[in-house]
């Protein structure tokens, strides 16, 4: 009897679950099914955005174009008269052929992305769409650093705000200010702070401290671009992380700490044995949504770096709007989709969050 009761209960639960899920799925189907399906389909065609020509199905060509790359060794330049390897007179180093002579041109033109030295030889990485390969690289670097820093800072802020002190109500509001500033506008604000003259905040401050001559060009200097843009994103989205973690902290039963206190466990020990493990599910969700947003990062790249350095989404934007390559843009969308899926799954697995 009892068994039958259980299975009936389970059936009832199953029914209820379906009922509860229906609204979500209806809404998502109505708004998302067609656009998402279209993206997948278009990624296999050569469709032009607002084009008047015919669209053809071209299989995986777009993906091939985006992703194919090759690594070639650059042979040293041999002097024709002496038959010896040419040495640069100024630097005393071997002269290598330029990538343009080495990389394949047929059937597709490969352009250099990156070159490096390895055991005295020089290699070049070439790609058919070097901007995209760079964009993938930029986006992944951006994601790793900004999400990592945000998680650490966010956890720190959440722990501080979670403790008892006067004015913490106010503090919770203050905490959300960066997240509340409209993204496009916040990017413009930072752009102004990064001005390459002393009209910009950072150059003014650095100049006051005697560093540089007030003309650091944060957004055009290749080695300053990524740190600058990561700093902007960290400022903007740490509150998101902090608030989610704060809510997670609230759910940890207080008496666990009380019990630990009785056992004489130190605060640090409590943090590692109670807080962190119990916070895992919150961390996982926060990580997934932050990573998802960072991999799709658009506004900050678009406003601050525009076409100087692309993220995957900003490259995608230019492919669609400027180049009107809708097929190509859709393929980029699908690649981003797959990357995000991969990240999401690995977070869930790594943090051991049980989804069943």
């Amino acid at each position: 009897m009892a068994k039958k009761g259980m299975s009936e209960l389970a059936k009832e639960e199953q029914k209820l679950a379906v009922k509860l899920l229906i609204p979500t799925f209806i809404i998502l189907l109505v708004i998302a099914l067609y656009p998402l399906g279209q993206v997948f389909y278009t990624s296999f065609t050569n469709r032009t955005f607002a084009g008047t020509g015919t669209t053809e199905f071209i299989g995986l060509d777009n993906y091939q174009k985006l992703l194919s790359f090759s690594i070639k060794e650059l042979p040293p330049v041999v002097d024709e008269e002496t038959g010896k390897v040419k040495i640069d007179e100024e630097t005393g180093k071997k002269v290598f052929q330029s990538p343009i002579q080495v990389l394949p041109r047929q059937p597709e033109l490969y352009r250099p992305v990156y070159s490096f030295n390895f055991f005295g030889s020089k290699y070049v990485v070439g790609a058919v769409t070097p901007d995209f390969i760079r964009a993938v690289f930029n986006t992944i670097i951006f994601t790793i650093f900004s999400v990592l820093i945000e998680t650490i800072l966010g956890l720190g802020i959440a722990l501080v705000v979670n403790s008892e002190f006067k004015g913490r109500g106010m503090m919770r509001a203050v905490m959300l200010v960066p997240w509340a500033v409209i993204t496009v506008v916040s990017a413009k604000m930072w752009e102004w702070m990064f001005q390459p003259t002393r009209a910009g905040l950072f150059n003014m401050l650095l100049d006051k401290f005697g560093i540089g001559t007030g003309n650091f060009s944060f957004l055009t200097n290749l080695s300053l671009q990524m740190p600058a843009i990561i700093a902007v994103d960290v400022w903007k989205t740490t509150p998101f992380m902090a608030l989610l973690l704060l809510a997670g902290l609230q759910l940890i039963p207080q008496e666990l700490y009380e019990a630990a206190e009785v056992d004489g466990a130190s605060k640090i020990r409590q943090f590692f044995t109670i807080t962190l493990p119990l916070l895992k599910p919150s961390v996982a969700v926060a990580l997934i949504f932050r990573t998802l947003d960072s991999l799709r990062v658009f506004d900050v790249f678009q406003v601050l770096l525009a076409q100087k350095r692309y993220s995957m989404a900003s490259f995608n934007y230019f492919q669609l709007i400027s180049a009107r390559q809708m097929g190509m843009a859709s393929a980029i969308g699908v690649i981003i989709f797959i990357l995000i899926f991969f990240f999401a799954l690995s977070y869930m697995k790594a943090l051991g969050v049980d989804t069943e």
Partner: protein
Amino acid sequence: MRKYLLLVLALVLVVSFTAVGFAQEKTEITVAAGSVGKELELTQQAAQMYMEEHPDVKINVLSTPDLTNDRLGLYLQFLEAESAKVDVYQVDVIWPGDLGQHFIDLNKYGAEEVTDNHFQEIVQNNTVEGRLVAIPWFTDAGLLYYRTDLLEKYNREVPQTWTELEETAKYIMEQERAAGNPDFYGYVWQGNAYEGLTCDALEWGFSNGGGTIVSPDKEITINNEKAIEAIDMAAGWVGGISPTGVTGMAEEDARKMWEAGNALFMRNWPYAYTLGNADTSQIKGKFDVAPLPAGDSGSSAATLGGWNLSVSKYSEHPEVAADVALFMAGKKGQKMRAIEGSFNPTIKSLYQDEEVLEAVPFFGKLYEVFTNAVARPSTATAPNYNQASEIFFQGVHSVLTGESDASTAVQYMELDLKDLLGYEIGEPRQP
């Protein structure tokens, strides 16, 4: 009784339907135009003027974003949806080639009679495969802004060549810095990796005899000594007479530095003239404009900018829409915009018009610049202009930032353009 009732009912129905019919008879035309303060106001004013003459037409002016890419993105959404919601589009001078298939041939709607009055360079630019897809509305061209007070103070002339500009800029910059302004620079321009750099770099190249990237007869001409020389020259300015940050600057960044009194020369569009003379400007009354300098083996060149009006082929009333477009871009409309908003007319005779010159005296100087303006190769590379331009400005930008040298960069531009367009390689020709 019933019969009568039915009759009355029928009559009421008929009357009300015809009433609805009458109400609908007013043709509605939507014009997608710029959102900027004065610009929008003047477009609405022109619409009003038209509606007074044609009471059966109602014109809605739809403001669109000022950011060119945002505006293009919107237009593409409309055109992709073949939307009849917008009848007349305000289009950038580089779009007719790319978007031309979506627009009607205005020559078939009476534009033929007026095209001779406009600057020929623009009319040619807007003619795609023999169809006039956009009527010129107002124009723009690159200008050299210079500080009259400083040139006078150091007894220098307005530079005629780039070499002169370099020398003067270097000299005065050193003097001004020594006199206590460490933020002073010689020359500011648009060096960010975007369409604006294509405009600037086209001027360097063309003024040096280096051609227009892709020639009007569809040959790729970028890989030549003169162009390399010109790009190298500009790369030499970065970190010297121009701040290192110039490689991240657009029009507004340059203008802000200029108006703060921190630059001797500036390359910019005519809009900076009126703004520079505003009360908030530090250099009010202390500057003037001139044609941009020439290279050693060429003549001064100014890249052509500006906006045109096109009529969507998805419009439900193409005749009326074309009439509206031609009216707005007609002499009366352009004159009003010139006087009240200092928009540069595309109709030549307006540059001799007394009322116009009285309102905006500096227009007289611009006439020559506009007649010599050089169009970007947007029609020759259609429908791939944006990509061609990106290949060009990314290449130039990599030279400016020192990532690449000019001769490698143009080699790649040539290969990439060939890959994109499939055109032959040719030699640049100077007109």
